C-alpha cells in the first residue's frame, strides 16, 4: 500500500470547531428575508377515502399566504426511491396517519398551524390492515390496488430436505423484531428560495442530493437543472433521511408564492410521518452436523413496509442475502415478503434488513452450539466465511473477508478471556450475569444490478489550496473528514490546504448516496482517479516551469519535482500563482463505477454484493431476575472496516453503533396499534441515555485491507450496530437460560420468559 501521511491517523473532524461553538448552521437555523413558514396537514385516519378537501376557511385566515393541495402539484404527484407510490399531497385516498393532504404557507409558524385546523377534509374511513401476514391474504383490504405484496424474494440452493433429514441437530423458531426509529436529533426540516428565473434552491438534510433533485424535479415537472439541493449538514440521518422528507413541500411553497419558505417538523410529526426500520417476523429452521457444520437454513421473512414502498423492496432482498449470517451454508430455502399495511412507513435504516435476520440467525447458531455442547466462538470460526468461499446465495466471496480476523481478535479481548471471572460476580444475589457473542457481515454498496457510481472533483485554487468535492452528504458519520484525509494523501498536500465541498448539486458531481456503507469507498476511489488527473495537469505546468519533460515530473507532498534533477522543484502554491497569471485552470475529475459480483440472481436487483464489512461483538449483561431488567455492563466491538481512514472516527462509529444496537435489543419500539402511533416522542420511545450505555466499550479495529478500496478501505457505518443486538440476547440466555425470540427484550418479556421457564 502507498505510504500515507494522513490516512490512518486521528485527524480532527473538519466540522468539530463549528459544532462545539454552535456556529455550524443546520438547515433549520437558516432564515431569509420575507420567508414564509410551511405546515403539513396529515391524515386523520390510517386508511380512508378522501371525499372532499375544502381549504376556503384556511385561505381566509389573516397571515395565510397559500394553501396547496394535490391540484397544485404540477408534475407527478408521487415520490419514492424505488417506485413513486407515495403521494406528495393525497387526492382520493390516505393510507397511513402520516399521509399529507394539504400544505399551508403563512407569515408565521403559529398561523400556519392554526390554518391547518381550518382545512376541512371529508373522509370515508376504510377497514385497516395492520398485520402483514393478514395483508397477504386475498380477503385483506387493499392498501394499494396493485396488491399488498410489494416484493417477493425466493432463493433456493442445494437440497434442504435431505440436509434436514441427515442433520444431527435441527433448531426451528420464529422471531419478531421491532419498528426501530432512527431518532436523529434534528427532525426533518429545511428552507428553500426561488429566484426571478424560477431557479429553486433547497437546503434540507438528506442523503443523496442528486436523487432529491430528481424527485423534486419530477414532482414539479421541472428541469432538474433548475433545482439545486444542499444536503450537508444533517443532524443525524441513519437512513431515515434517504427518502424525500420535506424537500418537495419546500419546493411547492416557493414555486407558488415566490417567497423563501421554511418547514421544521415537530418531533411528533416526525415520528408519525417518518421512516422506521421494518418490523419482521422471521421463521428459521437451521440444521447442523454433529461437528457443528451448518448444513441447511430455511428462512421465511415477512416484512412490514407500512403504507408505501420506499426501499422496502431492496430491504427484504438484503435481509434474505444476510439471513444465513456470515457463514457457508450449502442448502438454503429463503423466502421473503415485503408487505403493505397501514402501519406508518418503513424504509432504509442503518443495517438495511441485516439487523433483523442477524438477530435470528445468531440466536439459532447459539442454540445449535448449546445442543452440541460446542463453544460459541468455535462454531462461528468453523462456519465463518473465508475468502473464496461460496456464500448462501451461491455467490463467491471474491473480495477481502475479515470475519475470522474479527472473531480471533474478539477471542483475545479482555472481556472474552475473563468471561467466567466477570460472570461470577453479579451485583446482587438476584442478579445473574452472562456473556454473549455474535458476528455478521454487511454488504457495502447498492449491490448487483443497481447503478452504483461515484464522482469527485479536485481543483487547484489561486491561493495554492485545493477545492475537493464529493457529493455524498455529511450526516454526522465523518465522511467529509475521511475525504479530506484521503484527498490529501492522493493529492500529496496538507489537510490544511483542502477546502471540502459536500452534498451540494451546485458544487459537486453526483457521487451517489451516503448510505449502504458506501460513501468512503466510493468517494475515496473517485478521489484517487481525480487526483491522478489533477497530477497530469499539474505536471504539464510544472514541466514548463522547470524546463523538463512532463514525464520527468514527480509529485511530492506540496510540490512537483524533477525526477532526474531533484533540486528542481516547484511548490503547489507557486504553480497556482502561475496558473492564475496564465489564465489557466488546473483540476481533475474522477469517475468511479462499483465492481459487482459475478453472480447474477435472475429477477433480482441489489443482491448479491461483492464487498462486505465484517464484525464480531460481545456483550456482558446482568439480568435482574426479580424485575426482568437487563443491563449491558460491557461490550467489545471488533469491526473490519478495511483500512480505518480515521481510527478515532471508526471508534466513534463503533461505540455509537453498539448503543444503537443495544436500544434495538432492549428498549426501542415504535408502537402502532390499529394504524395509530402510540409512542410519539422520547417520553415513550425509549432511547439509551448515558446512564444506560455499557460502562466499557472496547473497540478493536481488525483491518482486512480491501485491494479495490481507497488505501484499502471498505465501509463500516452500518455493521457496527448489527450483531450487538443478538450478542445481548445471547448473553441474556447465558445469564439465566431463556432464549429471547422477540426484541426488544423488555423487562416484561424477560420476566415472562423466566417465569415460564420455572413452570415444569
Amino acid at each position: 500500500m502507498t505510504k500515507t501521511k494522513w490516512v490512518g491517523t486521528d485527524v480532527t473532524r473538519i466540522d468539530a470547531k463549528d459544532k462545539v461553538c454552535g456556529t455550524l448552521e443546520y438547515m433549520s437555523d437558516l432564515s431569509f428575508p420575507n420567508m414564509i413558514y410551511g405546515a403539513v396537514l396529515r391524515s386523520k385516519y390510517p386508511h380512508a377515502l378522501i371525499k372532499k378537501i375544502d381549504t376556503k376557511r384556511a385561505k381566509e385566515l389573516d397571515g395565510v399566504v397559500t394553501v396547496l393541495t394535490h391540484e397544485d402539484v404540477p408534475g407527478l404527484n408521487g415520490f419514492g426511491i424505488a417506485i413513486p407510490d407515495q403521494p406528495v399531497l393525497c387526492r382520493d385516498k390516505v393510507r397511513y396517519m402520516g399521509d399529507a393532504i394539504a400544505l399551508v404557507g403563512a407569515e408565521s409558524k403559529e398561523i400556519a398551524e392554526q390554518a391547518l385546523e381550518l382545512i376541512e377534509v371529508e373522509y370515508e374511513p376504510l377497514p385497516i390492515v395492520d398485520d402483514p401476514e393478514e395483508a397477504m391474504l386475498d380477503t385483506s383490504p387493499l392498501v394499494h390496488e396493485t396488491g399488498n405484496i410489494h416484493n417477493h424474494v425466493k432463493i433456493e440452493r442445494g437440497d434442504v430436505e435431505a440436509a434436514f433429514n441427515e442433520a444431527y441437530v435441527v433448531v426451528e423458531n420464529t422471531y419478531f423484531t421491532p419498528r426501530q426509529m432512527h431518532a436523529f436529533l434534528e427532525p426533518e426540516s429545511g428552507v428553500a428560495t426561488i429566484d426571478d428565473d424560477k431557479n429553486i434552491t433547497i437546503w434540507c438534510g438528506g442523503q443523496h442530493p442528486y436523487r432529491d433533485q430528481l424527485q423534486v424535479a419530477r414532482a414539479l415537472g421541472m428541469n432538474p437543472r433548475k433545482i439545486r439541493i444542499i444536503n450537508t449538514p444533517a443532524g443525524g440521518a441513519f437512513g431515515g433521511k434517504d427518502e424525500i422528507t420535506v424537500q418537495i413541500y419546500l419546493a411547492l411553497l416557493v414555486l407558488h408564492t415566490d417567497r423563501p419558505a421554511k418547514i421544521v417538523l415537530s418531533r411528533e410529526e416526525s415520528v408519525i410521518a417518518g421512516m422506521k426500520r421494518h418490523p419482521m417476523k422471521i421463521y428459521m429452521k437451521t440444521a447442523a452436523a454433529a461437528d457443528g457444520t451448518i448444513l441447511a437454513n430455511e428462512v421465511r421473512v415477512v416484512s412490514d413496509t407500512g403504507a408505501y414502498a420506499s426501499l422496502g423492496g431492496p430491504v427484504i432482498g438484503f435481509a434474505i442475502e444476510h439471513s444465513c449470517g456470515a457463514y457457508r451454508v450449502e442448502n438454503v430455502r429463503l423466502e421473503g415478503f415485503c408487505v403493505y399495511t397501514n402501519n406508518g412507513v418503513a424504509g432504509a435504516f442503518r443495517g438495511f434488513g441485516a439487523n433483523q435476520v442477524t438477530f435470528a440467525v445468531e440466536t439459532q447458531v447459539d442454540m445449535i452450539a448449546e445442543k452440541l455442547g460446542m463453544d460459541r466462538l468455535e462454531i462461528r470460526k468453523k462456519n465463518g466465511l473465508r475468502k473464496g468461499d461460496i456464500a448462501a446465495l451461491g455467490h463467491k466471496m471474491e473480495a477481502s473477508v475479515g470475519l475470522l480476523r474479527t472473531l480471533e481478535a474478539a477471542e483475545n479481548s479482555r472481556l472474552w478471556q475473563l468471561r467466567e471471572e466477570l460472570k461470577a460476580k453479579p451485583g446482587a444475589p438476584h442478579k445473574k450475569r452472562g456473556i454473549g457473542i455474535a458476528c455478521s457481515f454487511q454488504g457495502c454498496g447498492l449491490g448487483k444490478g443497481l447503478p452504483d457510481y461515484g464522482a469527485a472533483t479536485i481543483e487547484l485554487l489561486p491561493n495554492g489550496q485545493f477545492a475537493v468535492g464529493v457529493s455524498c452528504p455529511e450526516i454526522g458519520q465523518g465522511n467529509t473528514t475521511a475525504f479530506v484525509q484521503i484527498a490529501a494523501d492522493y493529492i500529496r498536500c496538507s489537510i490544511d490546504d483542502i477546502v471540502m465541498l459536500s452534498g451540494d448539486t451546485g458544487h459537486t458531481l453526483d457521487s451517489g448516496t451516503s448510505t449502504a456503507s458506501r460513501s468512503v469507498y466510493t468517494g475515496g476511489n473517485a478521489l484517487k482517479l481525480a487526483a491522478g488527473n489533477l497530477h497530469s495537469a499539474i505536471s504539464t505546468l510544472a514541466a514548463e516551469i522547470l524546463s523538463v519533460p512532463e514525464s520527468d515530473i514527480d509529485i511530492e507532498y506540496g510540490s512537483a519535482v524533477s525526477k532526474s534533477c531533484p533540486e528542481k522543484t516547484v511548490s503547489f502554491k507557486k504553480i497556482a500563482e502561475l496558473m492564475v497569471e496564465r489564465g489557466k485552470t488546473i483540476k481533475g475529475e474522477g469517475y468511479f463505477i462499483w465492481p459487482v459480483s459475478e453472480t447474477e440472481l435472475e429477477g433480482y436487483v441489489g443482491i448479491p454484493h461483492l464487498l462486505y464489512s465484517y464484525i464480531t461483538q460481545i456483550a456482558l449483561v446482568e439480568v435482574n431476575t426479580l424485575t426482568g431488567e437487563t443491563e449491558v455492563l460491557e461490550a467489545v466491538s471488533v469491526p473490519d472496516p478495511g483500512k480505518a481512514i480515521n481510527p478515532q472516527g471508526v471508534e466513534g462509529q463503533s461505540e455509537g453503533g453498539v448503543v444503537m444496537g443495544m436500544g434495538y435489543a432492549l428498549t426501542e419500539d415504535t408502537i402502532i396499534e390499529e394504524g395509530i402511533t402510540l409512542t410519539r416522542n422520547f417520553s415513550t420511545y425509549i432511547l439509551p441515555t448515558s446512564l444506560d450505555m455499557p460502562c466499557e466499550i472496547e473497540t478493536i479495529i481488525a483491518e482486512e485491507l480491501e485491494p479495490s478500496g481507497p488505501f484499502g478501505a471498505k465501509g463500516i457505518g452500518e455493521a457496527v450496530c448489527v450483531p450487538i443486538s443478538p450478542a445481548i440476547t445471547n448473553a441474556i440466555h447465558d445469564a439465566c437460560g431463556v432464549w429471547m425470540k422477540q426484541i426488544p427484550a423488555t423487562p416484561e418479556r424477560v420476566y415472562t420468559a423466566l417465569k415460564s421457564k420455572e413452570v415444569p
Partner: protein
Amino acid sequence: MKKVKAEQKKLISFTVNGDDVKVEISADTRLIDVLRNKLNLTGTKEGCGIGECGACTVLMDGKPVNSCLVPAFQVEGSVIETVEGLDKSGELHPLQEAFVEHTAIQCGYCTPGMLMSALALLRENPKPTREEIARAISGNLCRCTGYHQIIAAIEDASAKIRLSE
C-alpha cells in the same frame, strides 16, 4: 378576513452571555424561541419540544434548563448562558477543546446542549467521577456517539481546568 387571535405582547429584559437584552414576547413564547428567533442564537437546538432530549439545554442563573420548557416571561431579570458564550474570550473553552480532541461529536446536533450540561456540572463539581458525568448528561440524548467519547472529553476537560487554576 378572519383575524388571528389578538396577542398580548410584553417586553422582558435579561442577560445573555453577558449582554443585556430586551425582547418583546407573547404569552406563549418559549425561551428557545427568544434565543433562536429573536436573538439569532441558533446554536441552541430543538429536538423534541417536550424536555426529553436536552438539545436545547442552556444555563439559567447557572442551572441547566430545557429552554423548550421555559416560558419566556419567566426569564425576566435572569442570567442566560448559551453555547455561543463559551468561546466569547476568543479562545475555545476547555470543554470545547476536549470535545474536539476526543471526537465527542458526530452529527453535532446534541453538542451545544451537552456542553452546557457539562459546564454546569464542572462549575458545581470540578472533579466529577465518570458516574457523576454520566448522570449530569443523562438528560441529553445523543443518537450518534454512544456517549463514551463525550464522557471522556468532559473528564479530560475537568482535569485541564483544575490544572490551569
